[in-house]
């Protein structure tokens, strides 16, 4: 368990990108655009006041995915009602293998949806307005949630990987037992010795053994 100060320091170093609508609203009669601009301004002031590392504010234009690719932020913050969401969707899709949290802000007060709204690479967020005092806990929670999900994903991948490695070692053992008339224990010892001598993983030695057998058969 990390101490709080450590955790906050970690957040200070987060590279955050905000995707924001144009701040000079063209048509003051467009309520949607006006409220988005207002929220966006409040959000950025709040982030700066809380000491976050805002590396860029990107306009929601066609270059969004290129810029995000260049900047490699840890966290992308976007207004849930922004038209930029589909462009971000493209980013999420293109970076399926290098996931990063995306926080969505909306005016919706109902936090029961948060749990349901977590999409691939998106930690969805519901807040009422955007007072700066609320932003830090939100980011903390968003990051915690993201890390938790990543951990689950890693554990799943590790388990899958471990299973694959075990299968390879088992196959190599069987091969040695069959070709060299070794007992299972001796076959295992032999593989382990080669691994230690060469500074390789058991699974690597096992794979090489199988590859060699393929070549020579």
């Amino acid at each position, binding site marked *: 368990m990390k101490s709080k100060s450590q955790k906050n320091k970690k957040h200070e170093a987060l590279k955050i990108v905000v995707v924001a609508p144009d701040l000079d609203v063209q048509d003051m009669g467009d309520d*949607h655009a006006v409220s988005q601009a207002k929220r966006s301004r409040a959000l950025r002031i709040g982030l700066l006041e809380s000491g976050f590392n805002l590396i860029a504010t990107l306009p929601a*234009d*066609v*270059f969004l*995915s290129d810029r995000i690719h260049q900047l490699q932020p840890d966290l992308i913050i976007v207004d*849930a*009602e*922004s*038209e*930029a*969401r*589909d*462009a*971000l*969707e*493209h980013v*999420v*899709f293109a970076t399926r293998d290098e996931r990063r949290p995306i926080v969505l802000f909306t005016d*919706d007060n109902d936090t029961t*949806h948060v749990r*349901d*709204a*977590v*999409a*691939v690479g*998106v930690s*969805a967020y519901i807040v009422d307005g955007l007072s700066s005092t609320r932003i830090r806990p939100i980011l903390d929670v968003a990051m915690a949630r993201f890390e938790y999900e990543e951990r689950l994903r890693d554990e799943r991948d590790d388990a899958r990987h471990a299973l694959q490695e075990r299968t390879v070692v088992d196959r190599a053992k069987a091969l040695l037992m069959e070709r060299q008339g070794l007992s299972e224990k001796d076959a295992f010892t032999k593989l382990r010795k080669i691994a230690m001598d060469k500074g390789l993983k058991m699974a690597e030695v096992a794979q090489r053994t199988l590859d060699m057998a393929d070549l020579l058969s």
Partner: protein
Amino acid sequence: MTKLLETPMSRRNVLQAATAGALTIAPALRAAVYAQGSDKPEKEEVRIGFIPLTDCASVVMASVLGIDKKYGVKIIPSKESSWAGVRDKLVNGELDFAHALYGLIYGVHMGTAGPKKDMAVLMNLNQNGQAITLSKKLADKGAVDAASLAKLMATDKREYTFAQTFPTGTHAMWLYYWLASVGVNPLKDAKVITVPPPQMVANMRVGNMDGYCVGEPWGHRAIADGIGITAATTQDIWRDHPEKVLGTTGDFVKKYPNTARAVTAAILEAGKWIDAGLQNKMKMAETIADKSYVNTSVDVINQRILGRYQNGLGKTWDDPNHMKFFNDGTANFPYLSDGMWFLTQHKRWGLLKDHPDYLKVAKEINQIDIFKQAAAASNTPVPKSAMRSSKLMDGVVWDGSDPKKYADSFKVHA
């Protein structure tokens, strides 16, 4: 309020619909339809998300004309800013239904377009009426259709950028199919980006993209503004192709089958009203041009819904295969083969890593039974088979019979 399926007449229709088709309503379900004694919608007020496009019209008109009340529901259209937003709100229940891209609903069900969740397609909202626009600059260099574009891309080498509206959506698939038909691989030979429909025209104006595929009115708008040309309509790619659907979640259909049926019936009737004649179409155009819906001028909408097309290079034509909301009921049936087609293309372009069980997935998503009941309630003809045969622009026939073979048959793929 008119109770659905209450009159003996409409019951007979249901039975006819059920027995005429290759698919029959399971006896248990048929019993359930009548055993309830009342088919009153469980949820009477429903929020339906839509994106500002011409093809949201039947959803909007069902509400504006009060057709919804006739079926015991109140539709509240909710304007959304992004397809991703539509998806999230459907999944978390903020929206009950949505005017949605066919491939978006399938993408969510398969887990390729965000969180995996069982989804449902209740009906097709429309056929046709999208277009591929190329910039004036490209047209001046001779690229006015797929073949001449491929030629230009081969001789005048640089990075060409094309926009669609959502990674698994319909416009991405039309654009990819069209480019690939002339040997251009959209994933390797071009740069593809995602742009919200209302921003397409502005981006083309400042030279951010060479072409885009989007729904009307944004194809016609490029011509009206003199910044692009129509290189292909989507009905050129696939005549009477499926486009937007009325989508919801699998859970919603299970929990509120009567509501699903009532809303489907109301929108079927609204589509019938739109397609009934010129005056209705003009009235629809005036209604949806409003700021609360598509937010554009009426004349940008009303040309192409009447089939009056111009390509921006002086050619004008009357297209009989313009956007249809009803087309005597053929526009709305959620054919299993239509749904499967999107899966084959998702596989083709690497959005799906493995072949799914195409027919099984389509049967899970497309709610044929509910559609048939809604069709009976709104006097909509129902086709005999849940599959249909279509010949696409390259002469290849798709009839849903061997989806795996079809998906693997394309020379140009991911």
